[in-house]
């Protein structure tokens, strides 16, 4: 979720539209408090419902946002920096004092569907209730059952560090008035059951569009560019509609495999904010993953014959053995010296380096992610098998980075350099130095 930019835009939007909404303001800004309940016991829930809730929670990425870097699972406190301050996710364990232990199902449901907490306060739309509102009642119930049976953890909410006027919650009502419509998912009779299932999940709980759809100045998703490529935590979320730039066009089965496993031999390994998404996807029923893949593929449509030809060329292409250094071409020399060792090792994905001709990082519409990976690498962490790549932040100068990107883009994507690569490089390097 691109909280940073989203909030920047929201702030502007809120100020600009303040006058417009002021008349309606009080009507929308006030919500009643819902009475606290005794935290339900685990036995209050059917095991099958809890199980279903676990799968839904995985689809909804709850754990990703509601767990701090070194914190307890679901206990909140994850810091989301914005230009106007920092917002912290909340504790959604059933602890009665600091979590949602005293929330009734009705209170939970209102939060999911209307973005209002138990006490009646509007929630920041970092919590994607604009998607969750589509959920079916039974799915909300299952999620509730799952969360209420977690281990309660007493971690008080970290106060948000937002500047005026964003720290004035009732203003959120204005944003909601403009951009938020409550409503359940409605079946599309022109498509089959699987497609509808996929659409229900992808548009609702999985909230794919929160990252993959670009946003307008006021921070709302542009409905006319649905899945057209967005932003998330300073990473680019690639277009997953007909504008997809994937060197090999996605197919339903490859996308399903990718979502399930976090990588695909023809597409590479999920990176950045997509990493937790695919990790969670491992706990989701195969049929649901399949349905989401089918739905997204239908939005991508048939690839052009040109793209198909290009992909076929890639499949039959022979990878050249590592070439000798070319002293006059810094980009080529760098690639040979630093990248080819892994990227031409012939070792299969997900642990070997991808053939960069298959990499959307090189072929995609935006260099942001490629810069992330080159500079930060994929640092080793934890003790599960994972790809590891060294980062080059402390050794590559801006001109060297430009030379490398130019070489990669022209050799592997056969496309012109992105517009304004220099600025992207400068920003990326500055961000690196701040890290």
């Amino acid at each position, binding site marked *: 979720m691109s909280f940073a930019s989203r909030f920047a835009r929201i702030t502007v939007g809120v100020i600009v539209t303040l006058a417009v909404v002021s008349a309606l303001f009080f009507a929308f800004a006030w919500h009643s408090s819902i009475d606290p309940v005794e935290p339900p016991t685990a036995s209050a829930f059917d095991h099958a419902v809890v199980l279903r809730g676990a799968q839904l929670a995985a689809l909804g990425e709850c754990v990703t946002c509601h767990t701090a870097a070194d914190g307890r699972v679901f206990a909140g406190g994850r810091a989301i920096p914005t230009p106007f301050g920092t917002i912290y996710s909340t504790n959604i364990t059933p602890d009665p004092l600091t979590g949602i232990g005293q929330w009734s199902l009705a209170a939970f449901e209102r939060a999911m569907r209307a973005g209002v907490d138990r006490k009646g306060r509007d929630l920041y739309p970092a919590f994607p209730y604009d998607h969750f509102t589509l959920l079916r009642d039974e799915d909300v119930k299952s999620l509730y059952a799952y969360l209420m*049976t977690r281990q309660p953890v007493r971690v008080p909410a970290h106060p948000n560090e937002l500047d005026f006027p964003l720290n004035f919650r009732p203003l959120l009502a204005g944003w909601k008035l403009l951009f938020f419509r409550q409503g359940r998912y409605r079946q599309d009779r022109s498509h089959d059951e699987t497609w509808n299932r996929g659409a229900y999940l992808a548009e609702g709980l999985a909230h794919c569009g929160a990252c993959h759809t670009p946003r307008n100045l006021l921070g709302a998703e542009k409905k006319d560019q649905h899945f057209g490529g967005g932003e998330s935590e300073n990473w680019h979320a690639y277009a997953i509609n007909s504008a997809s730039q994937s060197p090999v066009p996605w197919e339903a089965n490859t996308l399903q495999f990718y979502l399930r496993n976090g990588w695909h031999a023809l597409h590479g390994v999920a990176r950045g904010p997509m990493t937790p998404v695919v990790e969670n996807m491992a706990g989701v029923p195969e049929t649901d993953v399949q349905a989401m893949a089918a739905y997204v593929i239908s939005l991508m449509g048939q690839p052009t014959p040109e793209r198909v030809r290009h992909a076929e060329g890639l499949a039959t292409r022979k990878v050249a053995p*590592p070439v000798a250094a070319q002293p006059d071409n810094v980009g080529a020399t760098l690639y040979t010296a630093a990248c080819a060792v892994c990227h031409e090792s012939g070792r299969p994905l997900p642990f070997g380096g991808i053939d960069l001709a298959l990499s959307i990082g090189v072929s995609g519409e935006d260099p942001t992610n490629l810069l992330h990976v080159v500079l930060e690498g994929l640092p080793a962490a934890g*003790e*599960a*098998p994972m790809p590891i790549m060294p980062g080059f932040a402390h050794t590559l100068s801006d001109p060297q980075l430009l030379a490398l990107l130019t070489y990669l883009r022209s050799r592997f994507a056969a496309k012109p350099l992105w517009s304004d690569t220099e600025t992207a490089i400068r920003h990326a390097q500055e961000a690196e130095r701040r890290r």
Partner: protein
Amino acid sequence: MTAVGADTSVRRSVSRRAVLQGTGALIVTFTIFPVASSQETGGAKTSAGAPKLPGSLTNAPFLDAWIRIDADGSATAFTGKAELGQGIKTALLQVTAEELEVPLNHLTLITADTALTADEGYTAGSHSTQDSGTALRNAAAQAREILIGEAARRMNLPADQLKAANGTVIAPNGARLSYADLVSPTLLHVQAQPNSKLKDPDSFRIMNRSQPRVDIPGKVTGGSVYVQDMRLPGMLHARVVRPPSYGAQLATVDTGAVERMPGVVRIVRDGNFLAVVAEREYQAIKAMRSLAVATQWRERPALPKQADLAATLLSLPVEDFTIFEKPVSTSTAAATAVEATYTRPYLAHASVGPSCAIAQLQDGSLTVWTHTQGVYPDRQAIAAMLGLAPEKVHCIHVEGSGCYGHNGADDAAGDAALIASQVPGHPIRVQWMREQEFAWEPFGPAMITKAHASLDSSGRIADWDYGVWSNTHSTRPGPAGSLLAGQHMARAFPPPPPKPLPQPEGGGDRNAIPLYELPRAKVVHHFIPSMPIRVSALRSLGAHMNVFSIESFMDELALAAHSDPVAFRLEHLNDPRARAVVTTAADRFGWAARQKGGNGRGCGFGFARYKNLAAYCAIALELEVERETGRVRVQRIVAAVDTGQVVNPDGIRNQIEGGILQSISWTLYESVSFDETRILCVDWSTYPILRFDSVPNRVDVDLVDRPGQPFLGCGEASQGPASAALANAIADAIGKRLRELPLTAARIKAAVGI
């Protein structure tokens, strides 16, 4: 480094010639060394009828094979054991200096070298202090007494009025003769005696004191310490192009382009053995990569399915050995029966530094610098592989990265030797690549254990049946076919037929016999001769898995008996030293007052006496399991260890701590992965090990002092108890028992459920 520093630079400066010119007449003794044992145990063979000498003195009974004093009074100790990062140099120097009565920094130590030191087999099995330390201690004590005797003779005083201190013999009237004055070429060339006049532990000044390790200053300042650091005149760099899988056959290789690459000196091909030699290291690497691309191999799928590994191993033919049997005594009717099956995958040694060796053929003699654990067996294998007489091969141990058993060290030495034999004159340095180390090292074997026991009505164990299924735990050199180069060359040497290692130390059945008192018991070693995956010795051999199993099972029984795990163990433990480490660990940990397990927090206990004859070790630990992810965070660990007479307390703590952390890594995270053709874990991304974020908050090691008792090896003592303590603490935390190693987050999460 100072004189204490028996680091490699000092060590190399003591040439064979200097030794021969010395006063020790060492060469004479070498020709009459009895043949040393080449078993994993490294134990000595005693010839029938000879008096039993202490430690490795049996292998080399002349004192001057162990201790030499030069005319200038400088003293040198010789050991056939090698520094593997376990701090053995420092401990052996302490032992020798203490008994010889010389200052520690006046003593030099020469380690494993086929031209200089006794054949002490392998540096393995936590034997170094036990074997070599005992030999040196006794030899030093006897040498001291000989020097005192010589002084007595010269001073014309009774020996018992003289005492030795600081390299000098002192008379009551203050007259003194230095060792330099006393020593003569033949003084110490005498047979060792079975009994020595050992110092009283109360008078120790050097032993049982934490002594800073002599090798650490060089290691933290960029000294030339490792074989990887050696640079010899005219040295060339070689890289091997290994087959992509076991048994792959070299079909074609197009060497033309590689031969023309900058710096390439030679491509060596011998059957399936392919290597390239270049002037500079990075040239060799680039040439190796190009050569690999230009080579075609024929592979065939011959590996078992990883997913059904346990079933596959159980389906292989076995040779059964009943290693312990105690028939039923006064049988009380069994009330409750408990049974369990435990499994372990293949584990990698995974040294941080891939193996390396240098070899040089000159005038028909081959010198090999290697971080092998056994210079003599390695020499034997290399000589056989190249058809040389063993005397023509000189193996010198130089440190490498920690090995934890039989890793690629010997194979790298074999590679260097084979290449050097074809490029005479030049020292050939072979450095294995990371991927080669993982794909080709002999792994620690996968194992399966099955336990069955019943409790009587009072909750005591009434009977016990235990079986362990395992491959051999040693395919070490000796034979040429134990080296990869020997297997791959055109004149292919077959790998030697695998053998089980005999009790009492055992291999796969190491520590399979519980130390507990059991009214009826039977323990069977189901030895599996056929080896689908290349295996050999990994630190503690079968003890890791057997102790993991037995100690997990003890907790399962304690649960069934509604008994506290520590109390249950003590009820079945008579050996007072075993009881002492158990109670010490429990007390220091605060076992009795611990928080009750559950809700993701738990405590666990594990105990064993390594090999049932070396150090005693008990471990208590506390951990947290994150319920939603299954992730384990170890909070604190307390270990109690009895190693007999302590030599270097901090050295022991370092070893025990290291063993515990390594065992955490094995137990929680590690398994070798493979498909039906190839080994798939070839780097740190595919074979992850413990990283800093998962390191416990605290590890305390308590030494139970046993002054005057024999040394008990401790280098491998903590592997088993740590793994069991982990499993038991996880069971305590989540209320479910995991029996399949590794105890990964995914498995724990699956056991926890939603």
